[in-house]
């Protein structure tokens, strides 16, 4: 018993009787002679789910309008206006949460942990942009995503990123996606949410470091178009895959490319591919040899990834609260560290035997080992396939938007003389 009790007991003259219905009933609730009524404890309800269904409807509507504006209307101005509206609604009004990028983790957790029930809203947020992308390309990125919008809005003086750097940095996004899936699948953390650079601006609060990170991103974004979307966004990776299989897509020119080269510098995201001659026989032989080399390199890269992933699994597993707790408890028990932490105190208080915790941590570490290897192998495969893609020579008759890299922002429309001609004709027809 704690030392404060006897003093309290003597001071308060409490009867030790009355039915102890509660957990810690040290002092039975009094029976007031004055007929004092107990105040009611208020429990304010959460915001109604209705608002979230409204969000899903708004998302679907915004996706539909964005696709129409990009494909049919071909208007950058209208896309920009819709983008600002999305930034205002999904970003500043709704606080940037739930977003499709973060919903990757909800979906992953629901796939791997049967006890987690995913809210239908998160599922809808994850799937809707993917389905739209399969048909219209990345119109979600163009005008719906608030994270893309805040970066697009600050882009004033785009600087070209050399292709080798662009491709290299793009790997970060794959690693981020893999890590996010790993940590969500093991139930450790939702890192996409924890390290979201812009949500702090949307909520007008957040930790200093994340606000600084977001501010730095926006500063870089003044010159390098949408740095988060291109080099970090894990959802962008999935959208890139799906958009390379899309049914329709945004084209630079509405009709026929006249090879005027005016659009060459139009894209701030480096997504315009220049025409390429069909390769000569010599080129082809050389490319074939290179392709063979790179194809042979893929297994090597995958195995290297597996090994590195296996090594990194142990440090990764410390992201899980139970594993880090188990390590700390073990260190305290073996006398490696002195003193306890809040976490270990809380653990000792539960009375759970440490052996159970250790077993739990070991099982988790096993999961991390599998997951870490898969992650490493996946990244090896990504690097290998990237190299293979580099060595593939294909003829391209016209200037084209890259299928997976194009964000459907519509900036290139205004550069195309054929498009300007079309607009002029359309105006004349109206008059």
């Amino acid at each position, binding site marked *: 018993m704690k030392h404060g009790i006897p003093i309290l007991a003597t001071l308060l003259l409490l009867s030790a009787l009355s039915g102890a219905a509660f957990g810690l009933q040290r002092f039975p609730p009094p029976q007031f002679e004055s007929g004092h009524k107990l105040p009611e404890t208020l429990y304010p309800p959460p915001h109604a789910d209705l608002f979230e269904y409204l969000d899903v409807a708004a998302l679907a509507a915004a996706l539909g309008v964005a696709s129409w504006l990009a494909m049919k209307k071909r208007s950058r101005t209208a896309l920009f206006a819709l983008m600002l509206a999305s930034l205002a609604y999904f970003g500043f009004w709704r606080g940037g949460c739930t977003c499709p990028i973060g919903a990757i983790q909800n979906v992953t957790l629901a796939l791997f942990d049967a006890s987690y029930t*995913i809210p239908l809203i998160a599922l809808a947020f994850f799937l809707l942009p993917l389905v739209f992308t399969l048909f219209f390309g990345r119109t979600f990125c163009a005008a719906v995503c608030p994270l893309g919008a805040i970066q697009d809005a600050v882009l004033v003086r785009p600087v070209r990123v050399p292709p080798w750097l662009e491709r290299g940095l793009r790997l970060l996004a794959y690693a981020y996606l893999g890590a996010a899936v790993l940590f969500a699948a093991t139930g450790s953390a939702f890192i996409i949410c924890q390290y979201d650079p812009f949500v702090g601006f949307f909520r007008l609060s957040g930790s200093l470091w994340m606000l600084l990170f977001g501010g730095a991103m926006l500063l870089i974004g003044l010159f390098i178009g949408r740095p988060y979307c291109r080099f970090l966004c894990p959802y962008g990776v999935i959208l890139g895959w799906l958009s390379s299989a899309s049914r329709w897509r945004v084209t630079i020119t509405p009709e026929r490319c006249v090879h005027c080269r005016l659009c060459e510098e139009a894209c701030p995201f480096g997504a315009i591919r220049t025409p390429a001659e069909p390769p000569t026989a010599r080129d082809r032989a050389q490319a074939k040899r290179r392709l063979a080399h790179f194809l042979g390199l893929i297994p090597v890269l995958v195995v290297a990834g597996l090994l590195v992933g296996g090594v990194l699994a142990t440090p990764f597993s410390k992201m899980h609260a139970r594993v880090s707790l188990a390590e700390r408890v073990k260190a305290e028990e073996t006398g490696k560290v002195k003193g306890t932490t809040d976490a270990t105190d809380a653990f000792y208080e539960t009375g759970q035997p440490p052996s159970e915790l250790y077993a739990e941590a070991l099982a988790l570490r096993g999961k991390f080992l599998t997951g870490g290897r898969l992650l490493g192998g996946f990244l090896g495969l990504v690097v290998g396939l990237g190299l293979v893609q580099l060595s593939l020579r294909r003829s391209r008759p016209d200037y084209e938007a890259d299928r997976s890299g194009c964000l459907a922002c519509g900036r290139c429309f205004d550069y195309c003389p054929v498009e300007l001609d079309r607009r002029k004709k359309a105006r004349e027809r109206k008059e």
Partner: protein
Amino acid sequence: MEDQEKKPDRRDFLRSGLRGACLLGLGGTLGFLATRSRKADLVWQIDPEKCIQCGKCATNCVLKPSAVKCVHAYAMCGYCELCTGYFEPEPNALNTAAENQLCPVDAIKRTFVEDPYYEYDIDESLCIGCGKCVKGCRSFGNGSLHLQVRHDRCLNCNDCSIAAACPSQAYVRVPSSHPYLYPKGYTPGPQQDEPKP
């Protein structure tokens, strides 16, 4: 696009196949997860039995001040004159002197009811959710004070930043139809208003 009337080549064929496969995959995910989904949203809440009042709720919430507040389950309260949630639970200092008050922001109001009972009310507009009073109440009193995520304030982030920092894993996702967790043995409601004889 259509005016070219070109025959679909191998690449287009592969692309359609890939698109079909993707759609099937997405449909499959939807179908599978629909069995593991819930209509209503999930919200964050603190399990009062796991909470150790470490103080992280006050500092780690994205809201300032935190969405976590101290909540008083009046029906559990002993109405003590020397409340260890209100005064420093230090035996030598335990008296009603003002300098012994525990709450750093003066969010607990103490009113005399009748001899020797005092009522304690939380002013949520002042409370920062530090849990100092909760610690005192749970350690030496009835545990009627407890920390809860207040859903009129909580933004319900997909990943609660307090949950990520909570050392005792007291944060759980609960269905929004039952958004509060009560201390052991307590259920709120009108039947609690009058203590049993």
